[in-house]
């Protein structure tokens, strides 16, 4: 049952991604709506697969790389829909759904077994800490997509390519505002994730901070986005620079998520 729901969600996301990619080259109101509907159905199925697994495992399904990637993707779609609800920019899907699909695809190739919870993870912080962290990272993931949209739109403007995709992309001002919104949502969430992580570490590992690779890389991410906010407000680094920084920031997040678990020796890898 869990497998069927997961595969089904993957299929819907895949279809929506295909439509969204086609839309980059040849889009219409109808195709945009179709993409949103299919993503919406995928999201509902994905949600039920996560709920199903929640009850099967007895805790938030986030303790293996398979579960974590899938949950990450779910959070990205959630943020995408929140933005879509507010700004109604269908074309945004073309820059975010590929990220969702890649996350789901990596989730699908990873071992899917439900493992019993190791003693260190048996804490009420498991749900709180991870949910904050993933929601924060998802905001940054969407900011990454919006950053790419910004650079593309700016390129069209500069090269006077003023038709096609240019017309369907929102204005630079709106893109910049969305980017800032996402970062000002992601940053407090990341901060809270680090704080709750510290509280948890204090009770489980006997220290709220031990310069573990996961902690260091999260702190680096935190510094990058703190930098984005500071240079924006005091030095007026908006637009292009903010877009580039949010692309760099998301690359660091991807390393924190995959790299630290797979390459570095961290206490914080539960795979």
């Amino acid at each position, binding site marked *: 049952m869990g497998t069927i729901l997961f595969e089904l969600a993957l299929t819907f996301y895949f279809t929506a991604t295909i439509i969204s990619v086609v839309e980059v080259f040849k889009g219409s109101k109808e195709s945009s709506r179709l993409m949103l509907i299919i993503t919406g159905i995928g999201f509902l199925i994905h949600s039920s697969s996560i709920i199903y697994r929640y009850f099967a495992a007895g805790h938030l399904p986030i303790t293996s790389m398979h579960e974590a990637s899938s949950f990450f993707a779910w959070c990205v779609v959630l943020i995408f829909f929140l933005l879509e609800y507010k700004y109604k920019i269908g074309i945004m899907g073309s820059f975010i759904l590929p990220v969702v699909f890649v996350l789901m695809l990596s989730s699908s190739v990873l071992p899917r077994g439900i*493992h*019993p919870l*190791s*003693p*260190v993870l*048996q*804490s009420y912080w498991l749900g709180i800490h991870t949910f904050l962290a993933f929601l924060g990272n998802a905001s940054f993931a969407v900011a990454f997509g919006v950053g790419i949209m910004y650079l593309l739109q700016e390129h069209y403007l500069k090269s006077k390519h003023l038709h096609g995709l240019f017309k369907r992309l929102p204005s630079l001002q*709106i893109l910049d*505002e969305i980017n800032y*919104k996402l970062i*000002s*949502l992601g*940053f*407090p969430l990341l*901060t*809270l994730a680090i*704080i709750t992580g*510290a*509280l*948890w570490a*204090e*009770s*489980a*590992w*006997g*220290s*709220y*901070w031990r*310069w573990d*690779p996961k902690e*260091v*890389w999260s*702190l*680096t991410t935190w*510094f*990058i986005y*703190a*930098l984005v906010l*500071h*240079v924006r407000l*005091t*030095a007026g680094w908006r637009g292009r620079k903010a877009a580039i920084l949010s692309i760099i920031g998301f690359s660091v997040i991807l390393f924190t998520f995959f790299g*630290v678990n797979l390459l*570095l*020796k961290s206490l914080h890898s539960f795979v």
Partner: protein
Amino acid sequence: MSDNKRNQSIVDRIWNFFSSITLAVVVFTVISLTSIVGTIIEQQAEPERSIKLLSKMFGDAAPGVYKVLDALGFTNMYHSWWFFALLFIFAANLVICSLDRLPKIWKLVKEPIKPLNPEQFNVMPIKREAQLKAGPDEVKGTVEAALKKIGYRPLTRREDGSIQIYAEKGRHSRLGVYIVHFSILVILIGAVIGMLFGFNGSLNLLEGTTSSAAYQGNGTAYPLGFEIRCDDFEVSFYDNSDAPKAYKSWLTIIDNGKEVIKKEIDVNNPLKYKGITFYQASYGFSPNKDSLFRFAVMSNAGVVQNIQIKFGESFEIPGTKIVGKVAGFSPALGQDETGRLFTYAEMMNNPAALVEFTEGGKLKYKQWILKRYPQTWKVQDGTVEFKDLWGAQYTGLQVRKDPGVWIVYLGSILMALGLFAAFFMSHSRVWIKLSDEKKTAKVSVAASTNKNKISFEQKIDKFIKTVTG
């Protein structure tokens, strides 16, 4: 502050240096980059290990590279003088840039909104106008009600021929950023207090033993001021697997010869006494001749007796002449494909005792009794429940004293509050002028906000719609 560098005193120059955004950018970047280096080079590792790893990249030059890294503090960088210096510059930057900007903001926060004169009104960043077929006094009520509905408390001033209604929201949220800055400082202070007055060590306690000290990494004893005893330690596993479910220690604190606390601790649930916290960190297995096998023995007639014996000692099944003796032990008994028994782990993952039963000195039968598997407890003449091999495992406790931890928590709470004010609240102000123009009221709106201008503009437009109906 003057831009003319020559006229600046040395104090001004230092002040400007520490309050600059450039310094913040540099410090953020340097702390991030060096921290990352620290995750690649293993910290506080044995030199041989690091050199071996480095030789993959640098070949024969590895020992030299290691020497350089070691001299620069990169092998224990989070405790190196230069990393502390970086954190100190970070803190100084934080404090001085806040102090530099705070007076201006403080003035804004202290001063409530005032009505605007026409020039000020005209230069506000958000401007709207509307006409209403009603007199200004009738419109006044509608405007005030509409403002109240979206959370403002409007004030009014009558001017000649017009009415000005003005209101603001979230004035104090301007302080959010400074609360966040201050909270970082609080956290750093808490961390420093922990480092100066705290202690971090460990203690291995064999079941049944007592200690009055914990030990630092270099072996120095740290007196606790009381005694701690490990009454028992146990790892429980998920059914039919070797996946650990819980590591539990039963601890007793003895202060002045009196048992003051008895507590069962596990990984997310430490024991705290007199400012010292004991965490379940590790465990080990070290069987010895005094370790006790604990059995609950029941005869077929139903008579139960709890017994504890050492290896090689014997017991009697109550009410019978059958004598049992522990003749073999495995901490983790397993079976290979051919049915041969073997020990598969060094820890007590699946403890098993081989018990020989004799009657009148003659061996009757022997049987492996496994602690985790009740179906192995039944023997011919009764039931032998293997409860524990006690006094063979030690609990590995992390022992920590950190008087700064509450300051760190306080800072964290402050940070959460500050972030909320800084990101989810804004200081918005709105002024509405109602003037009489030939039986209609002209509604002029001026507004400003320090954040989220676009969505605030939408809010103003919606507000005008509710007023004009």
